[in-house]
Each structure stands twice: as structure tokens, then as C-alpha cells.
């Protein structure tokens, strides 16, 4: 089942007098349960592509369909609701809400969606258990290591069972051990919950685990390689 369909998408930025073609005619699709990595040199358009898929930005041309939604037809307020309901984000710098505990951070999007308290608590505990942080629910982000914070961010992204998770350089700020632990968790969630993960990364550890690797250069897909085994 296709989760994301991208058809001949272009994204052009006008930087003063220079025209920058960040994405230049990309056509791709992502199936449910994929564990995909987008690689490429800096400036190749990885992050722009993730932003377009996540509804954070709109393409200049082409269309993106996510879970039946044609993103170019959504108004800004509808895009916010779309992101809340269909996309999970994991950022390079964790971006947790510093004044909330790990549990509260995980439950944040559920509370935005007005989940009943009991259901929210149960889901939060389940997710904290999945990422191995059952005992750190009451800790503030500042009391957690980088790896632990990123695991909380993953739990938050998964909370409302989105269609897919977009992870932009999720291991960039982690040491090898933490990065491997995080990838173990993501792989497990991908396997157990059939959650679709789309990464952008330079990290070989992530690439090693990917089942599909898409390479971008100058805003174009130069290779799209699917592996049968890792």
C-alpha cells in the first residue's frame, strides 16, 4: 500500500537574484512499512524533500499525495492538522519541550488531539516502554542524555500512530552507542508496528540498516536501491 506518492515535484527558491532548484523533478513513492534512507551530499535537497513530504513546505510544481491528501490543495491551517494526524517528526536536535517531562512530551500531541486521559497515559507508558525509558517518565529533557532525549522524540513521533515518521539526521548528535541503540528501537518499531520510517542522513550506521536507499544529487534522484536483506 502506497503511503506517499511524489510526482514530478520541483522546489525552487529565489534567493535575492539567484534561483535555487532545491528539488528538480523528483518522482517517488513510499510503501507502508518501509525503512528508507535518503542520502546525498550537503545541498542535494534531502531536507527539502522531507519538508515537502511532511507538509512543512509546498512544492513549486508537481504533486504530493499522502494518505489520500493532495498536499498542494491544503490550506496552511489544514496542513497543520494534516501534520498532526499523519506525520511523525524526529529532528536532529531532539526538540523536546524543555518544561515538560518525558511522559508529558510523549503525550503532547495526544493532548492536542484531545485523547482521553486514561488512553493517553496508557499509550505514553507503552511507548516509553518501547523505547526503554519506562523509568524516566518523570524526567525533564535536561535530565536525560542525548540518546535518551532522541528516544523520547521517537516515542512522541509515534504517539498518535501517524502514517509515517520523517527523521532528519536523527543520529547526527549522538555517539555511536546511543545511535545504534536508537536504530535498534526504530527497527523494532518498524518491524512490530509496521511503522514507515523515512530518514535523511549521512550516517553510515543508518544506511547500513536501510532496506531502501535513495540518493539525491542537485535535487534529482540519482539512484533508488532496494535491498532484500540488511
Amino acid at each position: 500500500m502506497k503511503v506517499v506518492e511524489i510526482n514530478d515535484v520541483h522546489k525552487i527558491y529565489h534567493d535575492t537574484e539567484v534561483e535555487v532548484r532545491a528539488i528538480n523533478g523528483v518522482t517517488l513513492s513510499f510503501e507502508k512499512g518501509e525503512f528508507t534512507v535518503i542520502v546525498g551530499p550537503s545541498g542535494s535537497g534531502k531536507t527539502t524533500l522531507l519538508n515537502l513530504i511532511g507538509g512543512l513546505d509546498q512544492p513549486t510544481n508537481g504533486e504530493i499525495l499522502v494518505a489520500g491528501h493532495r498536499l498542494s490543495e491544503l490550506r496552511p491551517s489544514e496542513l497543520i492538522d494534516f501534520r498532526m494526524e499523519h506525520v511523525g517528526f524526529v529532528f536532529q536536535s531532539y526538540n523536546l519541550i524543555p518544561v515538560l517531562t518525558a511522559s508529558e512530551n510523549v503525550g503532547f500531541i495526544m493532548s492536542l488531539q484531545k485523547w482521553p486521559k486514561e488512553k493517553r497515559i496508557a499509550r505514553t507508558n507503552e511507548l516509553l516502554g518501547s523505547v526503554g525509558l519506562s523509568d524516566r517518565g518523570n524526567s525533564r529533557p535536561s535530565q536525560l542524555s542525548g540518546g535518551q532525549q532522541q528516544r523520547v522524540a521517537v516515542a512522541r513521533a509515534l504517539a498518535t500512530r501517524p502514517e509515517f515518521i520523517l527523521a532528519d539526521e536523527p543520529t547526527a548528535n549522538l555517539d555511536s552507542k546511543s545511535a545504534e541503540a536508537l536504530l535498534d528501537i526504530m527497527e523494532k518499531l518498524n518491524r512490530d508496528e509496521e511503522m514507515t520510517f523515512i530518514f535523511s542522513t549521512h550516517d553510515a550506521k543508518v544506511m547500513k540498516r536501510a532496506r531502501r536507499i535513495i540518493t539525491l544529487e542537485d535535487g534529482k534522484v540519482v539512484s533508488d536501491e532496494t535491498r532484500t536483506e540488511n
Partner: protein
Amino acid sequence: MITEIAWKNIWRNKSRSLIVITAVTIGVFAGIFSMAAINSSVQQRLDAAVHEELSHIQVNNKDFRSSGDIQDTIQGADSLMTLIEKTKGVKAATGRIILMGIASTSAKSEGVEIIGVDPVKEQQIFTLPEKLVPGTGSYFKSETKYNMAYMGETLARDLNIIRFILTGDALAKLRNEKVPELVITRLQSLKDQRFISEKAFAKAFEVLLSPSQNKKYGLKIKEAAWSFREGSKVILSFLDVNNVQTSAVFRITGIFRTNNDMFESVSLFVPGEELRRLTGLREGTYHRIIVELNSDDLTGEVTSKLRESMPGLEVLSWKEIQPDLALMADFMEQIYGIFMAIILAALAFGIVNTMLMAVLERTREIGMLAAIGMNRRKIFTMIMLESVFLSLVGGVSGMAVSLAAIAATAKHGINLVKYSEGMEAFGYSAHLYPSVDIKFFLITAVLIVITGIISSVYPARKALKLNPVEAIRGE
């Protein structure tokens, strides 16, 4: 959750938030406490006006106020008073004979309003009898065959009835009031000298003392030397019913002291029956009926009722007689609202600045919130709540400090004796007992919330303009 985040956010930078909270606390305290002091001053003035000078309602012969003619009396005043006293809301009513005349002593003469009263009935209505200066006699209780007069301290001074004598008792009193022996020794040279005016006495002792001693003990020295001999004579001259000039000797039965120099300087009270005998006014005739109500709030209602039932007479409420006071009383809330709004408007700039810093520091975080699905309304609400919480914490603490300060000063009051001369010239007490109505706190709370909301608009708009993509790119 949004409320919780907003509350926690204001404590992220404690010192910055505490500075704003302290500023709001001081501003709110300054506003409430100064208004409490002003309010108490106005209330005291109102109480004095109604209960010492005017009464709630006055009923006059239609022409009397403009003519002042002895002949312009109220016909059938006795039966009218009975009727008035039966009106719902009326506590008591009494008649007054009012004459324009001259009060003279051997030293001076002053124009006065001679008011003939029923001493027993007046005591039910006015608190003026309670304003008797201790040691100066009584309110028409002296057993004497002479005509009696009850007058204000200012008039007594003007007529040189008050003397200033530093007797042995006066010096002993100063010693009891902890005036240093050095000062008392210097004052010994004035012992038993009689001064007929306060000015002359002040001039005499001020040269003996240093400026700081004068400043510190001047009032106490004047108070101690203040002297009056009960039964001092005053000659009152006025026209009788035949427009014949009549004069009679009255003995001062007591001297009263209010906060209104103007009232004190022109009002002189005598028993109505004595005045009736001297003027030839018929039994049961009065120029004015004064009416005391059970409550100040009934003034408008009872005035209208009496006006309807007595169409041939002039019925006036105290608000109509002294519209300046009524205006002050009616507009206290509005004045307070404007006063507080100005203070809070100034504080709003501080809150805007703090909130703007808080928003700009959290650019990435706010962008992230927008990225993961927090809509514009919720982001706006979060920033607005932070601003409202900042204002409210300061506001509540300002109100608490104000309450404590009001409670602390309510018993002994604030003594502005240095400014008493000026204040009492306008009828205001120099001793303030700060008090505020609960309404003032409600107005303050509403204004604080409004300030918080208004202060949040600019920072919140800044937050809403943030692009989540740029926030992520900022990494």
C-alpha cells in the same frame, strides 16, 4: 496542557520574570494604596458633609436660600416634620431657624450663619455634638441663665476667643508628651504670657527654638498652649421679624472641631427657642427641615418622594447642595479605573519587552511546535497565557501587599498633619484611614488580565510569523 506549558514557561527564566512581576506588584500596590488613601479622604469628607454639615436631605422655603429673609419660613413645619418622619427610609427630621448675622467679641467681629436648633433632636441626626473639643464645655448642657452658643474652633480663633497660654499645666503636658527638657526650658520665658492669636504665639516661641525643634514640636506646643474659658461672651446681631436690628449676649457653651475650616468659620449654633424669643418668630416656624435617612443609598429615592409630596417647597439632597462632592463620590470608580489603567499601560511596555525576549529565545521551539501540529490559535493562546500569568502573578501579589498595607494603616491611619492647613481648608481630614471597596480589587483584576492580553499581541504575532521550516533549518 497549553495552560500548563504557559505556566511553566514563565518560570524558565526566573530572574527575568521576577523583575516583571516585581514591577507589576509595585505598580498595582501604588495604584491601590494611593486610591485607598484618596478614597478614605473622600469618604471621610462625605461622611462629614452629610453627618456634620448638611444632612441627607434639606427642605427649605422655596425662596429662603436665595433671599435669606427671616420671613421666608416653612408653613406648617411641625406637621410636615411628622409627615417626613413617617416616610419610609427616614430616621429623623428636625427644624432649624437660620439667620445671617454678625458675631462680635471685644476684639473682633465676623459674619456668621446663626443656626437655631433643637439640641435634643439634633443629637439624633448629627455627629457635630461629638466634635466638641475636650475641656471646652458641652453641647448645650450647661446650666446657665444666659443664652448659649456652640461654635467652631476656626470662628473662635477668628474672634480671638481662643488664647494661647503656656501655663504650668501646659508645660507639664509637653513633658508628658516627651518633649525634651531643653525645649521646655527655652519655653519657660513665655510661661503664663497670653497670646490672642496663634500667629503671634507661634512667632514668639519659634525664635526660641531651632528650625528642627520647631518642625518637630511646634504643633504639640500650640496644642498644649491652646486655651479657652468656658462661658466666654460673644454678641450676636441679626434682624428680627420686623427687620429691626437686634443684639444679644451669648455665652460659649462649647467649641467644636471638624476638618472643614470653612464650615467652622461661619456656623454658630444656638438653641432655636432662644432665637425664636429674640426674633419674634412664631412657634412652629422654621426656615429649614433637615432629614436624616437610615442609609446613604436611600437619598435619591426619598428625595424624589418628598419632592412629590411637598410641591411648594424646595427639597434638596446633599448631592444637589454640594454637587462637587457628589461628583467625586460617583466617579471614584472611574477615576480609579483611569488611574490604574495609566499605571498598567506603563507596565505593559515592560511585559511586552519580556515576552518578546521569551518568544525570540524560543524561535526553534515554537517552530517545532508548529511543525508537529500545534495550530496558530493554540500558539497564540500559549503566548497570551504566559503574558496574562506574568501580569496576574504580579497583580495578585500587588493586591496582597496593598491589603497588608491597608490593614496595617487602618487602625492608626496615616497622619498628614504637615498638610492639615491646606487639606482642612477644603474640608478634608489630614488623618487618612485607607480603605477600598472590594469593587476596586475586581476592577484591578480585570484591568490586569486586559493588560496581559494586550501585552501579548505583539510577541504572539511575532511567534505566529515563524516558519517551521526555518526553525528546522536553524538546526
